[in-house]
């Protein structure tokens, strides 16, 4: 009887472990719930519907950028140019609102520019087989430099974030539902369907899992990768538009500080940086966790240095715990 209990506990532990490995979202949602509980304990009465709405609104741009990282990380890559591309899109849109075509034209132009940057990145990654870390790093220098040049050219035209973007980025319905969900929900549906239901999604996993095997089975990886980096850049551009609407600022360095958190959100969400494993569901929860954590550190009135230290430490701890839990026995 007493000897039986450990043996009975072991299979249940293994099942738990397998469950966490197959459904990484479950422990992540648990962590999110704990963080929300802590924030409620730290400041009773703060957690209500409108608070959740504000958190969601803050998390949306980060979650979209983390989507770029998730998609590229699935193929074993990374996209360090999302910050520069997102800032550029927001900035170019703000400078073009007085053009004849108005806001729609400004948005289309900025997203086309983002797609162009992504196309070059994708071709160099796919055709020349240069490590994506290097290519996207180089592309971020190029985009930032050109955006700076454009800033000097357009300084007289009187830039401003268009009111449409402000409504989408920062508006809320009934003070609960953020308007940015209009953009975010279709993106989520698109990425989830892309990864789970399409051959293209399966190719992303295949290339990340074993590039040689994928090539030998007939995957044209350069086409897949080129399309991937175009998609990632366009998503980054959209995130930049939402972010500029949320913060009501358009600057060439607006989203720079979101690059590292976007990678962190995807990693916490269970996407392997080595490729071939992960998904967007976990990433969204990861972005929410980082946003709630940031809010918690604000509520606790921790000074900025301590906040950064705690933030970094928690990313390491969560990633390590995740590794431990899901590691093969």
């Amino acid at each position, binding site marked *: 009887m007493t000897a039986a209990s450990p043996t009975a506990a072991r299979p249940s532990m293994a099942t738990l472990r397998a469950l966490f490995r197959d459904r990484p979202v479950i422990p992540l949602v648990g962590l999110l719930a704990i963080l929300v509980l802590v924030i409620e304990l730290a400041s009773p009465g703060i957690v209500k519907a409108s608070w959740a709405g504000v958190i969601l609104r803050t998390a949306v741009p980060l979650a979209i950028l983390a989507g770029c990282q998730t998609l590229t990380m699935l193929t074993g890559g990374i996209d360090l140019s999302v910050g520069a591309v997102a800032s550029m899109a927001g900035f170019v849109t703000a400078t073009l609102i007085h053009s004849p075509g108005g806001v729609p034209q400004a948005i289309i132009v900025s997203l086309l520019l983002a797609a162009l940057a992504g196309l*070059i990145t994708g071709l160099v990654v796919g055709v020349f087989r*240069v490590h994506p*870390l*290097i290519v996207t790093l180089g592309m971020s220098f190029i985009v930032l430099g050109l955006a700076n040049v454009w800033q000097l050219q357009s300084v007289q035209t009187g830039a401003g974030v268009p009111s449409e973007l402000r409504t989408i980025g920062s508006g809320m319905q009934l003070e609960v539902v953020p308007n940015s969900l209009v953009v975010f929900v279709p993106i989520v549906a698109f990425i989830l369907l892309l990864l789970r239901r399409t051959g293209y999604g399966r190719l992303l996993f295949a290339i990340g899992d074993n590039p040689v095997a994928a090539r030998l089975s007939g995957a044209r990886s350069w086409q897949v990768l080129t399309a991937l980096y175009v998609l990632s850049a366009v998503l980054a551009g959209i995130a930049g538009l939402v972010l500029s609407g949320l913060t009501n600022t358009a600057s060439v360095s607006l989203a720079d500080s979101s690059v590292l958190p976007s990678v962190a959100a995807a990693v916490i969400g269970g996407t392997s940086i080595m490729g071939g494993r992960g998904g967007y569901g976990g990433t969204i929860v990861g972005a929410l966790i980082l946003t709630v954590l940031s809010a918690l550190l604000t509520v606790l009135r921790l000074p*900025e240095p301590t906040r950064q230290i705690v933030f970094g430490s928690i990313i390491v701890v969560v*990633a390590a715990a995740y590794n431990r839990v899901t590691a093969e026995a």
Partner: protein
Amino acid sequence: MSAAAPTVGTARPRALDSAAAYVRRNGWTFGLIALLAGLLLFTKLIQPRYGPIPIQGLATSVQPLVLAAVAQAIVVISGGIDLSIGSMMAFTSVVSATLMDKQSDQVGIAVVVAVLVLGIVVGGVNGALVVLTRVPDIVVTLAMSFVWAGCALLVRSGPGGSAPGWLKGLVVGPLGNEWIPKAAVVVLVVVFLIWIPLSRSRAGLSIYAIGSNRLAAFRSGIPVSRTRFLAYALTGLFSALGGLSLTATTGIGSPVPGPYTLLSVAAVVLGGVSLAGGRGGVFGPIVAVVILQLIQTDLTFLRFDSNYAYVAQGAILILVTGLSSLVSFRRMRA
């Protein structure tokens, strides 16, 4: 007669062969040096007054990035990457500038030693976390970049402190001949005093071995975890040197990390160190840093908007790596 001729005949080609092999092995670095020489010539053509004084300025301004590139090169050779170099430099820079503020020279020297030890400790923490948690190094060092930047802000919330005169004197002006910048001599002596003995030692070879093929290195009896830890600690040491160089060249300590992390990755890749690890050295990245800075100077001379320097750096990074990858494909197929 016929037996003696071949021995005489092969003696010289053998020496030539080994020289040719040396050049081939370090072909990338020699190419970079040729490029640098060409760039210097070009600079002299477009700006006839370019002479010893601007070269001294160039040497001073590239010094922090040179040390950051060396730091990154070591960890990349070991098959890792460190995205916290900029934060570690900011941390060590504010610590040194704060502790040396209005202190005597003796205290200053003690602070330099202490900061170098701090660098080893900080890098060692990175290394220990990478080894113990088994989380990919890019994730660990990314997260630790927040931690070290936070530590820098704890020491000092804004730019301040000061550097003693002797430290500032180490990085400006000439040494003997006006064409020999003191900053370049100091940085080369420091780097080679540490790197050359190390890279010839068992530990240095182990760093190359684990970067080249970790499993093969493990099976040959190399302590992989200890060597990875060592590589990160060395990266911390060179980041601390970079932090001291920041303090010396700017005269103050700033808690906000500069663009050194990403620029160091770019310099390492341009310097012929493979991101896959196991290949390259520290000299290539050093030359690459000088080239990147000189291109920026040239663009200013040519009256281009200074922002095009970013564009040029990014384009060069993509073009050079793209071309080199194309060339290596050709070679693989041949």
